């Protein structure tokens, strides 16, 4: 066990999976990020976010494969290579670029197993980045995971800390279904305790990052940190907040969320995405459809507004859901006088 950044944790998962299984390859734009090769030159930066540092030296250019700038071919080729028996980890710098390769993912990779009558497996892992906070504007900052969650056949992973990032990525690579891993680009330098040895975190198991009795917050990715902060702050005033990080949106650990809502009766969902057809809406609908009797207040969703993401920091900060918005939301569900409570 030692302290590692999210970037290091992801790097370690990739390295260990590549050591364990020679069929694991990395493919994407600028994934080498400079000089490399089997001779062991040290200059390679390891890609746009430095996540592949050192991998080219250890595994060579045939397993860490720089590509032409053509996302559609990266995804299509990853699908084809997976059908040939490899386990490709395909990287896309920004989830925003998925637009130019979405067909290969949602019409192809996600459906091969189904279309082949169950005889094909497509163990592709797609790693990409999400999130605002870099001043990168409307086309480099989005959090488009709900779109992928909607596609049958795709699994979707959203790590919120280095420990989860490593265990979930290893699971993604070993998984026989295609998995999209959404890494928040503001979190690569976040630190946490991470075991040195390989380990797996199963999909569909939520993590309770805070235990509480009064309010449930379900949050995703970087929003988990904000929710934790709010929970810690409110704990000092005697309010007990439970924070749930589902970690995977598909499969989704519905039971954990429902158990918590049945206990607290109050739900806040925090999601950096735009609000329409979002995970926030999905979780709210889950609670309303499956735990209506237990709800003591309307569900409150804390999301980005229904606008593109402005680049300038002043506007961008206003766009991203904030701790104070979450706190207000928690107070709103706490202060709500349910009609039944009033009459009863």
């Amino acid at each position: 066990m030692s302290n590692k950044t999210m970037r290091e944790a992801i790097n370690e998962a990739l390295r260990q999976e590549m050591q364990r299984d020679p069929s694991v390859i990395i493919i994407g734009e600028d994934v080498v990020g400079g000089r490399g090769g089997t001779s062991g030159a040290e200059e390679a930066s390891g890609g746009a976010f430095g996540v592949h540092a050192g991998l080219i030296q250890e595994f060579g250019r045939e397993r860490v494969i720089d590509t032409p700038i053509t996302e559609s071919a990266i995804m299509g080729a990853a699908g084809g290579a997976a059908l040939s028996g490899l386990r490709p980890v395909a990287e896309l710098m920004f989830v925003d670029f998925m637009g130019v390769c979405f067909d290969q993912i949602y019409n192809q990779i996600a459906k091969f197993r189904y279309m082949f009558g169950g005889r094909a497996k497509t163990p592709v892992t797609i790693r990409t980045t999400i999130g605002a906070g870099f001043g990168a504007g409307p086309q480099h900052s989005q959090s488009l995971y709900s779109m992928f969650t909607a596609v049958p056949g795709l699994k979707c992973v959203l790590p919120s800390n280095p420990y989860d990032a490593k265990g979930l990525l290893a699971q993604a690579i070993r998984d026989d279904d295609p998995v999209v891993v959404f890494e928040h680009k503001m979190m690569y330098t976040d630190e946490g305790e991470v075991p040195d040895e390989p380990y797996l975190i199963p999909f569909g198991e939520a993590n309770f990052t805070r235990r509480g009795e009064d309010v449930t917050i379900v949050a995703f990715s970087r929003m988990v940190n904000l929710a934790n902060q709010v929970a810690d702050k409110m704990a000092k005033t005697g309010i007990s907040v439970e924070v749930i990080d589902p970690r995977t949106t598909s499969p989704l650990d519905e039971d954990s969320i429902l158990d918590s809502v049945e206990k607290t009766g109050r739900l806040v969902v925090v999601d950096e995405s735009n609000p329409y057809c979002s995970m926030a809406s999905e979780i709210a609908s889950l609670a309303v459809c499956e735990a209506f009797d237990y709800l003591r207040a309307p569900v409150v969703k804390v999301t980005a507004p229904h606008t593109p993401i402005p680049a300038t920091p002043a506007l961008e900060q206003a766009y991203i859901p904030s701790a104070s918005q979450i706190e207000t939301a928690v107070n709103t569900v706490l202060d709500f006088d349910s009609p039944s409570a009033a009459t009863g």
Partner: protein
Amino acid sequence: MTNNPKLHIPQPAARPGEVPDFSYLDLSDAGAVFRPPTNARAAEIENLALEMVRVLDDDHVAQGPWNPDLDKDTLLEALRLMVLTRVYDDRMQRVQRQGKITFYMQALGEEAVSIGQGLAFEPGDMLFPAYRNQGLYIMRETGLVEMMCQCLSNSRDMCKGRQMPIFYQNKKKNLFTISGNLATQYPQAVGWAMGSAIKGEDHIAASWVGDGSTAEADFHYALTFAAVYNAPVVLNVINNQWAISTFQGFAGGERRPFAARGLGLGIPGIRVDGNDLLAVYATTRWAADRARQGGGPTLIELVTYRGGAHSTSDDPTRYRPKDEWEAFPLGDPVNRLKQHLIKLGHWSDEQQTKLEEELRNTVNEAWKEAVSFGTLTEPPFLDVELMFEDVFAEMPEHLKLQRNKLLDLRGEKS
């Protein structure tokens, strides 16, 4: 023993610490390439895509049939615009380093592309620039202060704080906004050109991508569309040898020049010395005339070199020799035009020094004015309300509600 297929992973000719090697670059002599009439049949001029149109020779003298015979004033204006682009870039690069703007991208070494091509189009022609085409915005008089305010995202930002630095737009001057997603403007330019033809106008469109971006599907889709509809469009590839850390071989440059990408579709290609302003102007003018006369699309490859880092987030010393630009056989476009003007007796080193100083002052003055409209840290700041505007033609109710809620929370009026 069978002969199994082996994966070819392209390798650049030289890596950091090694001697730069441009032996892969096929050059033609200045003046050596034939200049066909603008209505020549595509099949008869395929060699233009494989050779290299050059006008300025090693002694800075204009040679051959592609010499556009530009007058003295035009040449001096081209030089001024190229130097201005370079000085502007230099200043903006430095203010980024000082933390005054969040991001910047230089066009160092590629100035002849935007200036030479920009001069060859008519003001009514619609240009769809790539992010290293700031020269197009400069030569179409977007205004340095306006451009700086965009980079600062301040109260006078033409994009209202929504776009990253350098993602300019200039609707009035027929300049499309920069897009963060590569090659997406190619089909849009083709569509604009089709629109012009449908309306019976003689305006044409042009777009630019880098060598790396030619791998994008949109590049190929756009060529197909342009060929099918004979769209009046000039499509350009700026081959500056690098796409971030991958060299042009990763885009398929090892096999055939990028200019040849359209040959299979019957689109003529021209490979041109991108650091030779005269050749850049002449070939672009040829393609623009051809398009305007109903001759359809042309694909131009401008061979140049990315003199600086990919962006302020990149460190090229990790992947290419430090002195690679100095060894680039097509030299420095600014210096080449300057030497040509000196040769013609129109210019001198002293005048060049004076010009550079003047333009540095111009840029410095513009910067002072730009920061008076606010910076990242000093007011006036942009209104948060701006985030909600222009999402739709009319702001729908739900957005108004979201806006008011956010403003309330921030303790601002709504």
